[in-house]
């Protein structure tokens, strides 16, 4: 009983905090944060657990978003089914693409993903313009039927749905970290030869990690689609390709709560700074350099040990995530 309580404790507190901040923070900001942290989670898992850096996450975001958009625009009206379609298309695409991509080394992997994002961008903007309506995008907010318990058309209901979904997702990733598979992922990153020696297939572990991470990204894409009620090729614009990587680093690579903290910091900074000055990139960039030079732990990676020490001075359990990420 105590064990279950402790396992869920951190997660529930984290999401409760976001839920409570609903009282004094604007709703669009919170929705953006939740979706963005789901988006970043995939990248964080790839970078922190398997050691793959991907500059092409928008590609999978677009796959999810367009999977949902096509369903809601042409076929049906139920947003839940739409999200399911988005996730399914994410699974299909990442299974096919992953089989080719995960054979490449980390730096090449980053670039072929970028290439994929660019290809999908032009595919959606120009080549398939008849179906996707090009730059105008697909508008389907009015198409969505209202659903009984949580009506996803309403931002306040959407918030509750996204929060619960994110909680489930984080529990899933926490479970992955504890499982043998999570250990295998860490092992392919640190020493692939030894893992192979133990009888595991590096290729399959990476492939599965790729599918898990990019399905998460596709889920974020379909949430964006349902939340905004429209999808345009701008979602996969190559200029935004590095966002998830930046946020991952900002939050702390490989930590469980890093993506949330990073998203809050990034979205908040973007909203606050861009109100006053046009060049918020300068600050994000300098912060990124600073974090990398100061030991690449990120905001959460630095805060976590301090928090644990002050909150539970006697508990010895904070070694667990400490060992999460060490590179180079």
């Amino acid at each position, binding site marked *: 009983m105590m064990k279950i309580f402790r396992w869920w404790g951190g997660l529930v507190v984290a999401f409760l905090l976001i839920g409570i901040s609903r009282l004094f923070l604007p709703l669009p900001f919170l929705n953006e944060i939740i979706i963005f942290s789901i988006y970043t989670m995939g990248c964080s898992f790839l970078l922190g657990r398997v050691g793959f850096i991907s500059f092409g996450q928008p590609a999978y975001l677009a796959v999810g978003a367009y999977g949902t958009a096509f369903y809601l625009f042409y076929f049906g009206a139920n947003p839940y089914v739409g999200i399911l379609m988005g996730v399914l298309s994410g699974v299909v695409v990442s299974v096919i693409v992953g089989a080719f991509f995960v054979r490449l080394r980390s730096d090449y992997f980053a670039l072929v993903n970028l*290439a994929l994002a660019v290809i999908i961008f032009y595919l959606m903007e120009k080549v398939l313009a008849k179906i996707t309506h090009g730059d105008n995008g697909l508008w389907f907010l009015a198409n969505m039927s209202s659903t009984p318990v949580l009506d996803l058309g309403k931002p306040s209901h959407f918030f509750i749905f996204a929060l619960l979904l994110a909680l489930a997702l984080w529990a899933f990733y926490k479970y992955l970290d504890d499982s043998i598979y999570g250990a295998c992922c860490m092992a392919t990153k640190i020493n692939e030869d030894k893992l192979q020696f133990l009888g595991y297939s590096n290729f399959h572990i990476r492939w599965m990690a790729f599918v898990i991470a990019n399905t998460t990204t596709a889920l974020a894409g379909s949430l964006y689609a349902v939340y905004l009620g429209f999808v345009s090729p701008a979602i996969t614009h190559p200029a935004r390709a590095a966002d998830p990587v930046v946020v991952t680093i900002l939050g702390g690579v490989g930590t469980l709560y890093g993506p949330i903290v990073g998203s809050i910091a990034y979205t908040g900074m973007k909203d606050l700074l861009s109100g006053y000055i046009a060049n918020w990139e300068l600050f994000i960039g300098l912060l990124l*350099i600073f974090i990398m030079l100061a030991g690449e732990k990120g905001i959460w990676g630095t805060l976590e040990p301090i928090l644990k020490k002050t909150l539970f001075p006697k508990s010895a359990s904070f070694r667990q995530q400490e060992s999460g990420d060490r590179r180079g």
Partner: protein
Amino acid sequence: MDAQLLVSGIIFGLSIGSIFFLLAIGLSLCFGLMRIISLDQLLYYSVGAYITYTVHVVTGNTWLGVLAGMVAAGLVSFGVERFVFFRIYERDIAFTMITSFGILFAGIGAIKYIWGLVPRPVPVPIDTQFGIQGTGIPVYRLIVIGLSLLVYLGIWLFLNRTITGKAIRAGIEDVEHVEGLGVNVYKLFTVTFIIAGVLSGLAGGLHASLIMVDPQMGLEVLAFVFMVVIIGGLGSIKGTLASAFIVGQVVSLGSLVYAPLAQMAPFAVMLVILLIKPTGLYGSKLLKR
């Protein structure tokens, strides 16, 4: 497709390819010698272009601007090398990639701060054309192509005829042995980084007259330049030249066939080449440090 379009398409492709080559050669050298992926070359490219614009506004001479752009890009790259890269040469590739992206991002912010968001035009210094079978060929584009070939020749002579160049080439093969021979490799790193920065500045200065100079220009060519480096094979100069012209032609001729192809086709080419030959056209087997 008629001959006129084809001729001007090929010239356009060659000049774009030259710009890509000038940018990619720096990236390629940096990767070969230091094992870093230096996305911030795109920053020196923007700096070169903006200095060209500023000097042109002040003096009215674009060539002087290009020269000043090269010097400024060299100075900025020297500063960045001293303060950032000098500390992180030992780290792995993903690390340098993210750090250099941070530099690029911060640099774009600084450029927006100094020059503002509005795109700036730079006039072409020589706007004469001469005709081949009725097709007007801008002399400036031919000069760009000629300059890039000269740079190739210069780099080749530098790497093969001077002792520093030979040390750099040896370093691309095996840094530790070079260090063992008593060469100060960190000095080599600095020299290489500055050469890369100056060439990126040159690319920016030359490209400034062909496009509008705007803060995002680095991000716009980022993907193409990377593609050139990857297709050519990281660390190979000859491969970079070949793939730069291939990519330039694919961009230019692709757009003549079907407009959206201009942006998509090179990426498709890269995907195919990487899946068949993961080290690129001329890439040797990749050494891990």
